[in-house]
């Protein structure tokens, strides 16, 4: 390999027969460099093989009372790392939130908030006149903020909020079990009936690991009684009796159901403010409204028109259910918590956020187009929905103004009944898309249908004010 130390006897021995020291030194250094690189590669391969062998290391024992996400994070550092990143505030074209600085006060110590939606679109104040949402409504922020944003919203100042809110604004699994003496639903009912401030003292964390995972197997589970009872009622409406979500749902269904525990339409039933998901007839907007009509539910009486109206609340789960992704078996987690490669490990990204901020992992796993193309497709859908949403908002504000003037001119309740019922209907339909956090993307055609019907109801309401003989056509 190197210089030959035994030259032929006829020639004199000497350095001339051995390669020059300089070349030998270069060879030695180069070989050492190659060895170093190969050793580094070897260690890298070794690490990957180890990662593939054991996907997690149990450092601390977790049980059904471990609430602190940091403890879970010791066993699952990758997932915990992502979970902590939900503090990020990033805008997309139609959603998300940028961080606005604010001067902390004694009542509200937050130094950052998201932009006010009411200032961005003052028509929302008209739609919600007389309701706490007309006082303060901001862009939604990440999971990390759920507890403090609800504690400090000005809606707390204008209305006594119930403990029911906490079902989805805190980690309530352990508090419910404690309050209910081991009975989750009993604890849920007890906290629902409390004042928000009293119930708030019983919870400690925003949504945490234990809310979606069974601690010994990490299997997904539903812990929110609102969903457990709601999906049971929905399945019953389809003829499936005695549905138990934690027993009967498939793994892929659970990857949507754990999100659907909270990202849904709901209302507070009766004076005890029991939280109910209105799915007794089905998940579509007209089925939900038919349920509210059947139980005579009004969230409030509209301050300008006197109509009994409803506030739709982020019906993401219901809307997604009407869309092509749900139909194709794509779960919430597939796009909002896509798989992430960490060395040889595959983890689901617990940095829950808009897929538009993560197009490669969220969309390109199935759709073989460039990131620019996929983003453009999503935004084209949202742009079209947003345009019609604005038309519907104008139509509704027009109807509200007309009813208000009719009221001032002395027309009585009997005369205003039909326009008011059309306002209730138009408003709930519009809000169903407005409050839904995808600007229509979760079910584009369904969102457009709902908005088109909202425009129709608002304009029919205006006709009914002008022509007492007009009979509105209301699709069922």
């Amino acid at each position, binding site marked *: 390999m190197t210089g030959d130390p035994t030259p032929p006897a006829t020639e004199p021995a000497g*350095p001339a027969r051995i*390669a020059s020291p300089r070349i030998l030194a270069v060879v*030695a250094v180069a*070989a050492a460099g190659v060895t170093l690189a190969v050793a580094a590669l070897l260690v*890298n391969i070794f690490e990957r093989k180890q990662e593939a062998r054991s996907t997690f290391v149990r450092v601390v024992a977790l049980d059904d009372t471990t609430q602190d996400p940091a403890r879970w994070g010791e066993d699952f550092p990758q997932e915990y790392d992502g979970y902590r990143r939900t503090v990020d505030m990033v805008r997309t074209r139609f959603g998300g939130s940028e961080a606005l600085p604010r001067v902390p006060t004694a009542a509200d110590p937050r130094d950052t908030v998201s932009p006010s939606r009411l200032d961005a679109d003052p028509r929302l104040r008209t739609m919600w006149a007389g309701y706490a949402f007309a006082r303060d409504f901001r862009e939604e922020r990440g999971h990390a903020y759920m507890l403090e944003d609800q504690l400090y919203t000005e809606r707390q100042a204008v209305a006594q909020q119930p403990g029911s809110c906490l079902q989805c604004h805190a980690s309530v699994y352990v508090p419910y079990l404690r309050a209910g003496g081991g009975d989750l639903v009993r604890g849920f009912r007890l906290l629902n009936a409390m004042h928000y401030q009293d119930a708030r003292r019983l919870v400690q964390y925003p949504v945490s690991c234990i809310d979606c995972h069974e601690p010994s197997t990490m299997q997904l589970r539903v812990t929110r009684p609102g969903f457990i009872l709601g999906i049971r009622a929905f399945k019953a409406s389809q003829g499936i009796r005695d549905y138990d979500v934690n027993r009967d749902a498939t793994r892929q269904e659970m990857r949507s159901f754990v999100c659907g525990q909270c990202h849904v339409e709901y209302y507070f039933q009766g004076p005890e403010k029991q939280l109910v998901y209105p799915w007794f007839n089905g998940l579509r907007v007209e089925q939900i409204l038919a349920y509210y009509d059947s139980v005579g539910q009004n969230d409030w009486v509209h301050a300008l028109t006197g109509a009994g109206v409803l506030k739709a609340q982020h019906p993401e789960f219901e809307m997604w259910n009407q869309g092509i992704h749900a139909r194709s078996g794509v779960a919430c987690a597939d796009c909002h918590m896509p798989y992430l490669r960490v060395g040889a490990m595959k983890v689901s990204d617990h940095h829950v956020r808009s897929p538009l901020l993560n197009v490669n992992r969220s969309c390109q796993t199935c759709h073989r187009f460039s990131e620019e193309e996929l983003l453009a497709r999503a935004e084209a859908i949202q742009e079209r929905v947003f345009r019609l949403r604005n038309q519907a908002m104008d139509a509704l504000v027009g109807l509200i103004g007309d009813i208000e003037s009719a009221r001032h001119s002395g027309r009585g309740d009997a005369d205003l009944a039909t326009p008011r019922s059309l306002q209730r209907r138009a408003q709930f339909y519009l809000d169903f898309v407005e409050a839904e956090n995808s600007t229509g993307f979760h079910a584009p055609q369904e969102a457009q249908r709902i908005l088109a019907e909202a425009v129709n109801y608002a304009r029919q309401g205006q006709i009914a004010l002008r022509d007492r003989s007009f009979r509105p056509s209301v699709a069922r």
Partner: protein
Amino acid sequence: MPAIPRGTGAVSGTVLSLLAAGAIGAAAGTGGFTFVYARGASYLGHDAAACANCHIMQEQYAGWLKGSHRSAAVCNDCHTPAGFLGKYAVKGLNGFRHSFAFTTGWFHEPIQITAFNRGITERRCRECHADIVDQVAGPHGRGETVSCIRCHASAGHLQ
């Protein structure tokens, strides 16, 4: 420089030679061990499992196991050219690129096929399915040709 005795130069030359030989030997030994440990020889063969050795292709491998082509073709049949030289040239080229990308982590997630390798796969579809393809292939519009895997994306790996 007559001041330095000839013998000293020979001794230092021998030491350096031994050092260089030792260093090369160490490189060869570590390299050889790494090759065996990383199952390097498996990459020269035809077994589809070898392509998932380094974990990155695990999903593609799992998809292939569930796909229709698992009983007709292995990775090499669609992802390397037919002839001996072409096959090993492409194996060598992609082997280097993959090793580099996966060690450094510098690649697009989810992993995407390159235009060059897509071309190889397209040609391999047409070679096996020549009877059918001959009847449908041909220019579409202004010199565009149809792509097999644009529509038959699940043929190789079930999605």
